[in-house]
């Protein structure tokens, strides 16, 4: 997927003025987070499960080669094929290869963020293979030519009216008189369109929430059941997943499942949890003839052993997006690439380069809400700060911000100089601000004063006043006041 992360500020500005988006974000803010809170409250061991889930993933990341090789062995033993792919290009080519060998014309797809990462839809289309998204949200945005704005709720930026308009425009067989004013009716309309596509597809592509080394299974979590139709009906099933998705055992997978849905939507379990273990066996009634796992690196192995390794624990639940006040203000598209919210702001620079996504790690107050809810206890604010350090230390270029910071640091490091400078600035500000009591414009602070007043100071610094012994008189005055 092409990145527009370098246009973050402009995209965020536009997003703030998009009334439809703002209405949608308003609903998101409290919905998911309240549900998560309730789900966590209902399960007394939830916090312990988070620790356990973290421990499992940390162990995997320390022994990733071992578990990946074991996973590969099991996939092959089960009659499947495993394809190691270093980057998006390699994955695209491999998928196209498989589709061409099968003489595939249409491919159904269930929701996969890795699919977005490698832009598989555009690639297949270019090669005259029609990809059909079957997750309702993904289906809607595919019709609209958009990208997901949320990792688990891809069409969360849209309202019902917009979806209805899209269906009326794109579904040529839709009778004008038919009502589409309720979610259920919209769902039925999408289903009526998708039913034949499911049946006629040659290949089904799914993502995977986890890969299980013990069994060679891939785990899929959905709420719509579309993934099951995607991988059981076509003749060929392709799973696309990145390296860090592997877990050692079935039991480990279920431990992580216990925190996944609760963190994501506040459900105990997703409606469908599917374990796919290879192609159809001789006695099976359903299932694909071929089972391929595309095991993709795409930048992950570079994070191993780096200060960003913790990010590889991410299970893509979306809790950090749902709880992020920045995400809630601008939505997902402003981040400019596949991922968004705090996890996106950490992951995008790692995957496409810090120089192409320089705003993302900075556009956060580091409020810590993401880390507080992350089921895998990823220290997201710390990782955002680590990117900032790379930016600050890694570039020779002196931006205005950097120069100002350096000047400020020079003063802060020298208390006497600092005190003198501060008192001087305060004196000037006091003179100019005396009348109004505040400022509506200050040099270098447009970001603040464009929407907020800045107070006029009341005198010299506290430390200077304290030094002069002003405290005692203040105290006496206060005590006198109390006696009255």
């Amino acid at each position, binding site marked *: 997927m092409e990145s527009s992360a370098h246009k973050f*500020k402009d995209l*965020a500005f536009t997003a*703030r003025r998009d009334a439809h988006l703002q209405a949608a974000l308003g609903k998101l803010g409290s919905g998911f987070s309240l549900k998560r809170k309730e789900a966590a409250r209902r399960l007394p061991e939830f916090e312990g499960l988070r620790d356990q889930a973290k421990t499992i993933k940390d162990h995997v990341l320390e022994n990733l080669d071992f578990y990946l090789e074991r996973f590969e062995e099991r996939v092959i033993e089960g009659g499947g094929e495993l394809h190691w792919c270093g980057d998006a290009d390699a994955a695209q080519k491999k998928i196209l290869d498989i589709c061409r060998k099968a003489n595939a014309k249409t491919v159904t797809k269930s929701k996969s963020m890795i699919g977005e990462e490698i832009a598989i839809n555009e690639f297949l289309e270019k090669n005259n293979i029609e990809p059909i998204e079957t997750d309702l949200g993904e289906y809607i945005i595919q019709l609209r030519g958009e990208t997901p704005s949320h990792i688990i709720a891809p069409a969360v930026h849209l309202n019902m009216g917009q979806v209805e308009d899209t269906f009326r425009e794109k579904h040529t067989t839709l009778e004008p008189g038919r009502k589409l004013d309720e979610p259920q009716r919209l769902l039925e309309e999408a289903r009526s369109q998708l039913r034949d596509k499911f049946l006629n597809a040659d290949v089904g592509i799914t993502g995977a929430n986890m890969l299980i080394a013990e069994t060679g299974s891939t785990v899929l979590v959905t709420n719509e059941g579309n993934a099951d139709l995607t991988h059981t009906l076509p003749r060929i099933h392709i799973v696309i997943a990145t390296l860090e998705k592997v877990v050692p055992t079935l039991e480990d997978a279920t431990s992580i499942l216990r925190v996944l849905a609760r963190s994501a939507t506040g459900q105990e379990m997703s409606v469908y949890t599917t374990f796919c273990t290879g192609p159809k066996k001789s006695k099976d009634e359903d299932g694909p003839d071929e089972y391929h796992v595309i095991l993709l690196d795409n930048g992950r192995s570079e994070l191993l052993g780096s200060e960003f390794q913790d990010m590889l624990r991410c299970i893509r639940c979306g809790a950090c997006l749902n709880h992020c*006040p*920045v995400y*809630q*203000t*601008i939505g997902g598209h402003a981040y400019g690439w596949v991922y968004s919210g705090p996890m996106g702001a950490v992951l995008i620079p790692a995957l496409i380069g810090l120089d192409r996504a320089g705003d993302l790690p*900075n*556009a*956060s*107050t*580091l*409020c*810590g*809400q993401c880390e507080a809810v992350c089921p895998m206890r990823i220290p997201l604010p710390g990782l955002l*700060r680590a*990117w900032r350090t790379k*930016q*600050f*230390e890694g570039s020779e270029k002196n931006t205005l*911000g950097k120069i100002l*910071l*350096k000047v400020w*640091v020079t*003063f*802060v*490091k020298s208390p006497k100089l*600092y*005190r003198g400078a*501060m008192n001087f*600035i*305060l004196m000037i500000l006091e003179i100019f601000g*005396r009348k109004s*009591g505040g400022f*509506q414009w200050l040099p270098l*602070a*447009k*970001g*603040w004063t*464009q*929407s*907020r*007043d*800045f*107070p*006029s*100071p*009341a005198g010299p*610094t*506290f*430390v200077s*006043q*304290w*030094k002069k012994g002003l405290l005692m008189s*203040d*105290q006496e005055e*206060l005590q006198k*006041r*109390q006696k009255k």
Partner: protein
Amino acid sequence: MSDIVKNKAPVVGLFVTCLVDTLRPEVGFASALLLQRAGCRVEVPLSQTCCGQPAYNAGARADTKAIAKNVITSFEGYDYLVAPSGSCAGMIKEHYPKIFKAEKKWKNRAEALAIKTFELTQFLSEEVSINASTPETRITATYHDACSGLRELKIKQQPRELLLKVSGISLKEGKEAERCCGFGGLFCVKYGDISTGMVDEKIADLEATGAETVLGGDLGCLLNIAGRLKRVGSSMEVRHIAEVLVGSLDVPAILKTRKIKK
């Protein structure tokens, strides 16, 4: 006061924070007075400037270390370091030891200081007790939980209990009291437009409580909230909790007109 009692009084180094130091000295005086009422001897090291958080969050590691060393040197001699800010106290308590993880000598000193570092309401609730009560304060207030204090130092009940105990104020809770106000240090200047959206969400929640005063423990958030409230013409007042606990309500609230001394 006898010499023995005097000697027993814990000596608190008041880390006043750069924002209070420059923009709201009243909070510094109120904090000092509260600490004295709680039986502490208060000292203000003149060598203090800033905790270094702006540099730290900008990724300037070497500068952060230099600033942190100044804070450690200035405050390690006291029994406690107390700051009227969860953000600065959190920086010293949670982040200084991490900053020096590769320098053993400084790491030890940072850890020693971290143990005795407290945010003001945390200190007044957990380490000492304050019995003096202020004259009945008739304000209806709501409390904004500043992010670092809440999530790094677990400050939630302490300010609320102190307000009830010392000033007889019970709060009208905002539904989103724990939501970030959008200040974020340099964030609010660099991403002013996003920050504005965030503070608008915050003030909508504060105003929905029907309270007339917003209280909080971090001047950064309070300046941000007060600055926006003033710009949109709201009558809500904004104060640091220390001002209320000490009873100095005749000082104008943040960004409300000050009386000019003649």
